[in-house]
């Protein structure tokens, strides 16, 4: 056999690593510096699709006023949810048998519409529509007093991982908003929905569902509830988080809840690492 050609190598601690396996884990964990928090004071807030956007002006106008008022005090970035049109598109996609990656792609269009609508409503208060590629410009937008509005969907697109069973993407707008907060080094991610928070079952369908004000992600996973108010992948991410160790879910139809939640008051359900 001929000789193996030499590599053009750059020496680094990882140069000889496959980056996969126990040895790579050790190399990675040897860097134990505290995580650099990129924009820790930003407030990352999700506006629910089905829960808020699909209710139209009656729900949105008061909320918009409150967001505008809060933006005078905090750097706020909004992430938009999908809602009923995303569900319709997913139902069609399942019927046609498109793979999970295509489902994630079609699921991405609806939160973009919602983000654009939020931008129009917030424009006079500084609302701007941004894309994933604009994420690194957030300091500029905040300095100018803008309220950036991003789709909640993460940029996974065709590369969304299939799960067992359904082709509905596991990472949707809750995951995207949560991961925005984690990447920026924020301590809490905020989720505006139309329920007080987490219940033992969907309170819209089960009148006996009980409210859970505070719970750890681990406990919630162990409870194995039939329905939860936040995407299940977020619970897994929470347990591994370096910065964003809690999510606060609250009812945005009640005036004042957002203001209180941003001030650190406990108004809904807190799920923590």
């Amino acid at each position, binding site marked *: 056999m001929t000789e193996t050609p030499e590599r053009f190598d750059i020496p680094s601690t990882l*140069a000889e690593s496959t980056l*996969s396996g126990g040895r790579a*884990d050790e190399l990675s964990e040897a*860097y134990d510096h505290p995580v650099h928090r990129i924009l820790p004071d930003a407030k990352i807030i999700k506006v629910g699709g089905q829960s808020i956007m699909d209710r139209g002006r009656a729900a949105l106008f008061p909320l918009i006023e409150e967001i505008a008022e809060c933006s005078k005090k905090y750097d706020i970035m909004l992430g938009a949810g999908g809602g009923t049109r995303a569900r*319709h598109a997913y139902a069609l996609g399942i019927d046609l048998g498109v793979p999970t990656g295509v489902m994630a792609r079609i699921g991405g269009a609806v939160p973009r519409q919602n983000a654009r609508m939020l931008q129009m409503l917030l424009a006079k208060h500084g609302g701007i529509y941004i894309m994933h590629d604009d994420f690194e410009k957030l300091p500029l937008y905040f300095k100018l007093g803008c309220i950036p509005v991003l789709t909640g969907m993460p940029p996974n697109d065709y590369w969304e991982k299939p799960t067992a069973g359904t082709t509905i993407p596991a990472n949707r707008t809750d995951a995207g908003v949560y*991961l925005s907060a984690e990447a920026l080094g924020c301590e809490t991610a905020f989720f505006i929905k139309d329920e007080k928070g987490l219940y033992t079952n*969907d309170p*819209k369908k089960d009148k006996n569902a009980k409210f859970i004000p505070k719970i750890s992600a681990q406990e919630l996973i162990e409870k194995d509830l039939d329905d939860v108010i936040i995407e299940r992948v977020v619970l897994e991410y929470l347990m591994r988080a370096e910065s964003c160790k809690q999510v606060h879910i609250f009812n945005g139809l009640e005036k004042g809840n957002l203001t209180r939640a941003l001030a650190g008051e406990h108004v809904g359900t807190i799920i923590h690492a």
Partner: protein
Amino acid sequence: MNEIEKGEGIKRTHIKNPLMRESLMGKHLQDQMSPVKELALLPGASVVGVGGRSIMDRGRAAVMPLCEEIVKAKENFNMILGVSGGTRMRHVFSIGMDLGLPTGGLAQIAGAVEEQNASLLQAVLSKDGGVQMCREHFPEMPKYIAAGILPIIICMPPYHFWEEPADKGRIPMNGPDLGLYLTAEVLGVDRLIFVKDKKGLFTDDPDKNPKAEFIPEITAAEALKMDLPEYILERKVFEALALARHVKEIQVIDGLVPSNLSAALAGEHVGTIIRSA
């Protein structure tokens, strides 16, 4: 599925469909909302991953013969080439981890190295139809294939800042191998071949451990259960492979050995075959 259910006042407006009013988090959906049959978008094609550290970083001595073989194989197979990062990716991760960058920050900087390698590979394959394809053109893949073009893509999945926190340390768990696997799986291609500089999967990195044993064939679950000190592919690939709809078998081959790629494309077993189950 087209009726609108208008919500008066503060009530929600719905479109009637099987997922109407669902939180989408309900457990019942996991089975109920599975497609009867999942479409394969590009059956008949093969996805071939060209290793960064294993092939590209070795320069012309490794890249040129492999490219000749790719061009030869193109006469019989529709291929999509993916290329990964290599030593510069490891270097930028080392610096990034020294700076304490979060996992999402590391994922954000990883892709540039692959872009360089894709440009290099495209230049070498240009006269034979190599085209560097960006993600935005992904839905045009059938056009490229029909025209006899060799699309060259980067492997890293586009998660960027939205990469999930890692189990241990900060290196993104979803790397180039997983990205290429997902490319092959979403397209529903016939074959996925990872071209590396080792015969395949060993019980340890044979460069570091002379006692490492070669594993010619294994299932994804078995491989993960072995909890090896080094895997030739990211562990996330094994997890994804276990849930495969289309790409239920992948092969890792030594691309420094002439004709291995052609043999693997033809279905021969020349490296390690990893199966879904």
